[in-house]
């Protein structure tokens, strides 16, 4: 049984937030708990340590018994067997390959076997057949936040491009076909765009600067390799909005590889997929030691895996890649400090 009397204000909000009443309850709690709870939250432990896991980039095809189905199932089993279990799982986009409802439904079916709650954001492969209609029907809003054990979690849709299809007279299938190519040279750069930037400003407005903040987007929040949309066009604005916080941790999918960077107060880290690994682009990595080994093409599981994050009291912690082959150099095996 959770002892509500021992929880600080933010923890209380986290639990009630799960019921989908976060905003309403937040103001109510502010009134009823008042100064006592605020004083408690200002103590030296900023969060209750816990674990969460990340799955991403399954790229499911609308083909029965496709090999990627089995790989996602394996990832789900892996998470269910983690000890300790994560408090929840975040899925970072690209459930499907071609944006088909059947692909997303298959993914949702497999992911429903997770023993813990799931939060999802979209990737470009989920979106451009019907402009996110099926995805929203199944997973709700792509823009969300919640509080958990003292940490503020934010998810946003970072794969929004400007209309490149109307002028060209493309069909939805053709539009999706273009977006399916990583190196699509008609599609332009992705971003979260004005509406979500406004939402983000409002979302973090009331948080204290020492609040632990974690952000999830499909694409990295820094200019890694724009040619493959290893970037988010308005990442500078996102980083600016979050610049008032002591520390921000950002997690992204899309790159299907181990990659790390730190800009100002924000640390950003990439994640392993459950479909195929992507090679590193021809640029110098900002942290060249944090990278994965060359993959053996003969091993279907090489380059793939899951990951979990253990957050410690002072909002420190490491991301642990759970790679399914000999993929990680020694330094990365022990986890990447965030």
């Amino acid at each position, binding site marked *: 049984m959770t002892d509500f009397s021992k929880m600080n204000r933010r923890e209380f909000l986290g639990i009630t937030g799960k019921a989908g009443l976060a905003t309403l309850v937040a103001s109510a709690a502010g009134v009823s708990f008042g100064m006592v709870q605020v004083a408690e939250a200002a103590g030296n432990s900023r969060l209750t340590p816990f674990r969460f896991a990340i799955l991403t980039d399954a790229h499911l095809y609308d*083909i029965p018994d496709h090999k990627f189905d089995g790989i996602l199932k394996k990832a789900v089993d892996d998470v269910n067997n983690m000890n300790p279990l994560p408090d929840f799982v975040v899925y970072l986009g690209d459930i499907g390959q071609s944006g088909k409802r059947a692909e997303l439904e298959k993914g949702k079916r497999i992911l429903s076997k997770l023993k813990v709650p799931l939060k999802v954001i979209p990737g470009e492969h989920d979106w451009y057949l019907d402009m996110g209609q099926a995805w929203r029907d199944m997973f709700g809003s792509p823009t969300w936040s919640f509080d958990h054990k003292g940490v503020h979690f934010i998810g946003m849709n970072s794969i929004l491009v400007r209309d490149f299809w109307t002028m060209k007279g493309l069909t939805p299938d053709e539009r999706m076909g273009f977006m399916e190519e990583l*190196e699509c040279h008609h599609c332009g750069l992705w971003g979260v765009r004005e509406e979500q930037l406004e939402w983000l400003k409002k979302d973090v407005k009331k948080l204290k600067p020492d609040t632990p903040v974690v952000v999830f987007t499909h694409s990295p929040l820094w200019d890694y390799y724009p040619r493959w949309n290893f970037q988010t066009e308005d990442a500078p604005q996102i980083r600016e909005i979050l610049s008032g916080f002591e520390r921000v941790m950002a997690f992204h999918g899309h790159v299907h590889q181990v990659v790390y960077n730190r800009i100002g107060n924000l640390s950003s880290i990439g994640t392993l997929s459950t479909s195929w690994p*992507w*090679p590193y*682009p*021809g640029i110098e990595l900002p942290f060249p030691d944090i990278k994965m080994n*060359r993959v053996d093409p003969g091993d279907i599981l090489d380059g793939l895996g899951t990951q979990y994050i253990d957050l410690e009291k002072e909002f420190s912690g490491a991301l642990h890649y759970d790679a399914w082959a000999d993929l990680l150099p020694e330094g990365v095996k022990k986890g990447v400090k965030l």
Partner: protein
Amino acid sequence: MKSNIKSRLFTFTGTTVAIVSFAFLAIEPAQARKPFTQDELAAQYKDLMATVKEGDDLWHSAKLGKNGLACANCHPDAAASNPHTFPKWQANLGQVIPLRDMINWCIQVPLEGQALDANSKEMKALEAYSFYMHRGFKLKPGENTRQHPPVEVRSGAGYP
């Protein structure tokens, strides 16, 4: 005065060039054919680019396989196809192979498709695309410990 010096210099340079080219002409083998004309070169280049384009289209097409995957799923811009490192000993095949054998392995295993005839138009096109995306690279036959990014592509397909 100035213009005088200039014109003298010009004459001097002109003479030198004439002597040097004469020397080259003298040792050129008699049976060498005439250089390709600009029109011929343009036509050849057009053919090459058409082959590269055909390879690009195939590289990004699911029709080589049976499970929806294309070469480009793992090799965007032909990255990590490492054409300049072949022939080499390939661990997953346990022997020394040329690039086309690796392409056929990819078609048969990850893509679950039918191997192409090694001399088919399709195979030539796939090879052309992979090689052209690595133009200017030093040959490193045998190197099998590294993955290489392709030529830097800023916009477009990566070739004219």
